[in-house]
């Protein structure tokens, strides 16, 4: 799957989870850019992303996400294995 397609699907997950249709994520998006993205919502986001792409992150993955770009890299690695 191309990064672009991952971004499109990821964007929909963000919009659903934060219930905000104005969200558009890019490589540099971090929790600071989205008002409701706190540590408690973070877990819901992770679960929703896992379900969207049909994969399971491990603890190492989740602890290394610094921004959405890194998230997409990890997703992409899983999908293109």
């Amino acid at each position, binding site marked *: 799957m191309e990064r672009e397609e991952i971004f499109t699907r990821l964007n929909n*997950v963000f919009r*659903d*989870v934060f219930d905000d249709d104005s969200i558009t994520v890019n490589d540099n998006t971090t929790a600071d850019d989205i008002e409701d993205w706190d*540590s408690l919502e973070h*877990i819901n986001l992770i679960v*929703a992303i896992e379900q969207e792409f049909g994969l399971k992150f491990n603890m190492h993955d989740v602890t290394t996400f610094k921004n959405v770009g890194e998230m997409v890299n990890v997703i992409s690695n899983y999908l293109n294995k």
Partner: protein
Amino acid sequence: MKELQYPFDVEYLIKNKKKIKKVLLEKEGLLEKRVAILGGSTTSEIKNMLEIFLLNYGIKPSFYESEYNKYYEDAMFGNKELDEFNPDIIYIHTTNRNIKWYPNILDDEATISEMLAQENKNMTQMWDKLFAKFNATIIQNNFEYPYYRLLGNKDASNVHGRINYINRLNNLIYDYANTHNNFFINDINYISSCYGLDRWANQFYWHMYKYALEVPAIPYLAFNLANIIKSIYGKNKKAFVLDLDNTLWGGIVGDDGVENLAIGPEVPSGQVYQEFQEYLKEHKNLGVILNIDSKNEYENAIAGLNHPAGVLKPDDFIIIKANWNPKNMNIKDIAAELNLGADSFVFVDDNPAERHIVESTVEGIAVPEVDTPENYIQIIDRNGYFEMTNFSQEDLKKNELYKDNAKRSQMMSTFDNYDDYLKSLQMKAEICSFKPIYLERISQLSNKSNQFNLTTKRYSLSDIENVANSENYIKIYGKLADIFGDNGVISVVIGHIKGKELHLDLWIMSCRVLKRNMEFAMMDELVAQAQAQGLTTIYGYYYPTLKNKMVKEFYEEMGFTLIEEDEKGNKFYKMNVEGYKKQNNVIEVER
């Protein structure tokens, strides 16, 4: 909302909970309750999920959440914020992560028993402390099994095993539950095993976020909890409305003939339907009312129900509608005849098209998505429609009561004069101030009565206990019996005393004794008690809701004078105690 029925699409719920919440908040007449969550691990998502399940039951919660793992401190040493919040419900979300001591393989039995006693003492002190401080209901998790077994299979039987230890600890919690009102167990031990303990205990969520169960399991936990809470507030379902062909037996009685129906132990499909009928019969014994709504000739339906291998017989049902009318119309008729709201029904039908029509045209009815007969029981059971909390003897008799009512309506048609009919019933009432044995029933009635209810004020068991123990209230209940049977406690009036005035906070009556002049007998006793206490004036209030139009003119009928009516239809009345004349002359009253 269908999405909030078992089985759930967890992915959908997690992603869309905010949207769901918005939609549910638009409902009118939500009951507001304060819920304190005292957690031994992270509880944020539990709160969010609980909120949408409660909203779906018509309960609008506000929340207090203890700081991370501060359940014990909050309970034992108090917390200003919690005190001010003054919860109606306290949910203690502890898990096996919160058990302080586990047996060591070197400990002797006495040490382990002592450990257990200490663990139990800590919890008991905490609950006692909360009960002493708050006028609230406590819901406590039991403990789920650990996700590993140091002793392997021996972990269950050996005193050093954690499984063994947790079972013993749970039994101590149950002892407390069995000896305390307003204390209920949230059985996560069962829920986690249904869900699958391996997934439930997914350690990723503990180490990453300190959730003691995996986040996708939370809807199941929250749903189970919401079922307890909705039951406490009288929002259980009350009746089954059942289809016949391919629902209670295999085959179509009109086409296949009674002798060819699949029911009974001989064949697998017959066994399945037999077990389902047994399951329904057990519900009847618990006081759930059974009814039939089937597209069939009436004779064929009765013939099918008389199948020798059938568990349910025609006599087990209160109302049998077997005709060719649309099912939703039959349901409305059943509701009218039982004097129950159709929103208290569970409709079971194998046909998805019938389910769809009923679900989309009968507001509030539960329509479980039963797919294949061998799954009927599981799908219905997991939905917790009939969750038992305040279980009263009245419930056990409910089917008899409704049957007696059906007999009464038959008898009525043979009398020309209504008073003669009433006298022929030889009604005997007991009307007195609250007595301890009836408090549970009184609270239940206050939560269940919607139609004959002047103020629609709800009282939890602890609220009723407070009223019962206070001198500032006149509080009377009425029981009514007649030649057909005992109806039990069916009416309650509560008024608070202010100087020489009595203000009526609550006047309710069960609809199964409508038009029996019981309200006049209650009024007579109310005035008698007011006179005895030297009160001069009684004030009545009527607050309209969607359901209580039947009592709009009630106080006029009782002889009150209307003082004021506002634009919303709220009415305010007054009556002088002096010169009151007794109004009941058909019921013999014991005071």
